[in-house]
């Protein structure tokens, strides 16, 4: 605890502050684009489309100055998971054109075999890609969006401000609690608690000795904070004004209209195509 990569004092939930085009986009515009992207991935799909979107996302990661090393580090787990989905498709989808047959247990003298089919291969690839695209798109959003600005954006768009401020206050106090946690550990050792000793009972005790002081300090802080916020009229009325003006610029509108337009278009085409397909099928 108490260690952040690069000694940064402000860990903002995966937000990587940079001065880039992607960072500069309006948070709400980006959120709308993300929702569109997820919709299309889930409903529209298609291997070609998915590969295209995935490459686009990777390009945006590079364009935002964050680079691919961060996603590689964070994506390792996701990649493994995607691979597992892919493999399970290979094993369990046995319909369609057979590409090759494998007897994996032959060396044990078991003749059980399964086929790798075209359906299984392509289906697995598509599901794994969908998964990857959704996760990496969300990561791009989180890494390039200042959560305070997002909270403000959401509140302006109608989210009750109490909820928006829950996010802001959390962000404000994460570093504080982080520092407190390491102080508590120091205090334990300074009073002779040997935290290296093993055993279930000791782990339980240690957890107690960590959470009790942290909780007590948090409660005191919450009291002060409530007084400070209510004392400045928080909760006095349902509405509130926002001092910081948000400029939704041309490029934000392009992003919103572009993604929403493409989504409608593709979903429309898809529904037409499906009706057409039904029509053809019913004729046969």
């Amino acid at each position: 605890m108490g260690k952040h990569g690069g000694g940064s004092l402000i860990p903002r939930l995966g937000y990587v502050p940079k001065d880039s085009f992607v960072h500069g986009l309006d948070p709400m515009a980006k959120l709308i684009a993300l929702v569109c992207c997820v919709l299309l991935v889930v409903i529209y799909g298609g291997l070609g489309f998915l590969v295209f979107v995935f490459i686009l996302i990777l390009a945006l990661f590079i364009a935002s100055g964050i680079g691919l090393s961060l996603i590689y580090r964070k994506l390792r787990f996701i990649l493994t998971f995607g691979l597992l989905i892919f493999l399970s498709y290979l094993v369990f989808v046995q319909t369609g054109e057979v590409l090759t047959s494998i007897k994996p247990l032959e060396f044990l003298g078991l003749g059980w075999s399964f086929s790798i089919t075209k359906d299984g291969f392509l289906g697995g690839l598509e599901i794994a890609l969908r998964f990857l695209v959704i996760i990496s798109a969300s990561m791009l959003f989180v890494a390039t969006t200042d959560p305070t600005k997002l909270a403000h954006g959401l509140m302006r768009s109608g989210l009750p401000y109490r909820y928006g401020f829950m996010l802001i206050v959390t962000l404000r106090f994460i570093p504080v609690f982080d520092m407190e946690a390491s102080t508590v550990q120091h205090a334990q050792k300074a009073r002779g608690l040997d935290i290296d000793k093993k055993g279930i009972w000791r782990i339980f005790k240690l957890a107690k000795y960590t959470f009790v002081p942290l909780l007590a300090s948090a409660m005191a802080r919450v009291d002060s904070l409530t007084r400070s916020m209510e004392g400045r009229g928080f909760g006095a009325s349902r509405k509130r004004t926002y001092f910081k003006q948000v400029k939704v610029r041309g490029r934000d509108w392009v992003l919103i209209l572009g993604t929403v337009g493409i989504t409608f278009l593709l979903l429309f085409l898809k529904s037409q195509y499906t009706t057409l397909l039904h029509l053809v099928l019913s004729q046969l």
Partner: protein
Amino acid sequence: MIIFNSFSYTYPGSSSPALHNIDLSLDKADFAVITGPSGCGKSTLAHCLCSFLKEGKHTGKIFLDDKDIMNIEPFKLAEKIGLVQQDPDAQLCTLTVEDELAFGLENLCYPVKEIQKRLDWALSVVRGQYLRYRDTLTLSGGEKQKVAIASILAIKPEVIILDEPTASLDPKSTAQVREALEGLRERTETTVLILEHRISGFLDMANKLVVMQEGEVALEGNPQEVMAKRQVLEEIGVLLPKREGKKRREEKKTEGKLLAVKDLRCRVGDKEVIKGISFAIKKGEIAALMGDNGSGKTTLALHILNLLKPSYGRITFLGQDIKSRKTSELAKSIGLVFQNPCHQLFEETVIDEILFAPRNFGMEKVEVRAERWAGYFRLIALLNRPPHSLSHGQKRRLNLASILVYGPKLAILDEVFIGQDMGNMMHIMEVLEKETKKGLAVFLIAHDPNLVSRFCDRVLFLKDGRLAVDAPTEEAFKELERIGEHAYLPRGWENTGVGH
């Protein structure tokens, strides 16, 4: 403008009133200081004024401009009364200074143009324009308090209450808060109410001083008049009694090197906080460690217990290098009391808390000793209470008892006097002085120069990662004056000290 009319208040579940028959009136633009020993009711008074205490029972009335305060909802009061609290960290709720200043006005639905205007104005009144575009996390304690004051001032309330606004601040940050208050006094008509233990820094600004004792107003009036009643103030515990004569504790022998630090360098993250310091602490000595917040005092303390590893240099305790020693074992000889009392209270009862360390060390039959230490620190009646339910002052004394009970040879005390009244401070120092006669060395991290000049044998001053001063107390203050650290000189020093 504010009138307390035989006002009494009793907390829920308590049998005796926390405030008893308060009659007090404050006018527009009054600058009042309210003081009194811990538990005298200052904070209760402030919270009643802000109408935070609704659960308890009250009799009598508080009027604000002829309206009964107890009938007004807290947030409706926001435009009339603002409260600045002690903990600078716990009252800022946003991530940037601008957001913080705008917070109240936004909640009260002010138009953007007006917010902009008030923001400029409030920052200029507290003399904090340079803070405008900063992140709240990067502010020092004093700057945080400045922002907290400005964020309330922006609402333009009629009254601003400050509850021990400088208790946890170093002298430089305290000066920043004073600066903000000077601005308030000169440029606004706001009624200011300061609740403080250490009143000397505010008296020249105040036109009213109220001394409270056991829930009642004991003295009230013009600061000069009230301060003239020195003996009464000493009895109540608002002032430290004068030291008899100038003699230091000559009879005490400080000998034998206990702790030696040699060319220590420490990093925190990427920054070198301590850049090569050497000093030693002898048996029976009370040494003070002073310096601005963030100068590395706490970091140094953590290194002495091997909680942090130095990047260079050596620390020896009784001639042994501590490098390879475990903290949990080293702790038996070196006790450390941390800054925040909450962070070091682990057990469910006070007596278990005192026994926490001795049990960890496997010491036997310490119960009698534990009770004796509870007695020294006036905790005997509280032995079965949960530690977190104690008052701040009681928690601090419990922290001390929990360290001294196992008889360490060196006690490092990080800001143990924050929020203590004079009576408790004197009492704690008496206990410590008695122990030093038996050989205990005390390394006291402290901000208050008056306290240091009164009780410490030696002063070490950390500045920019180096020891700027390491000398016996009198000499040390002369040295501090020479290097321009006037904020760290005790009261009256510049009149009696050499040159100016």
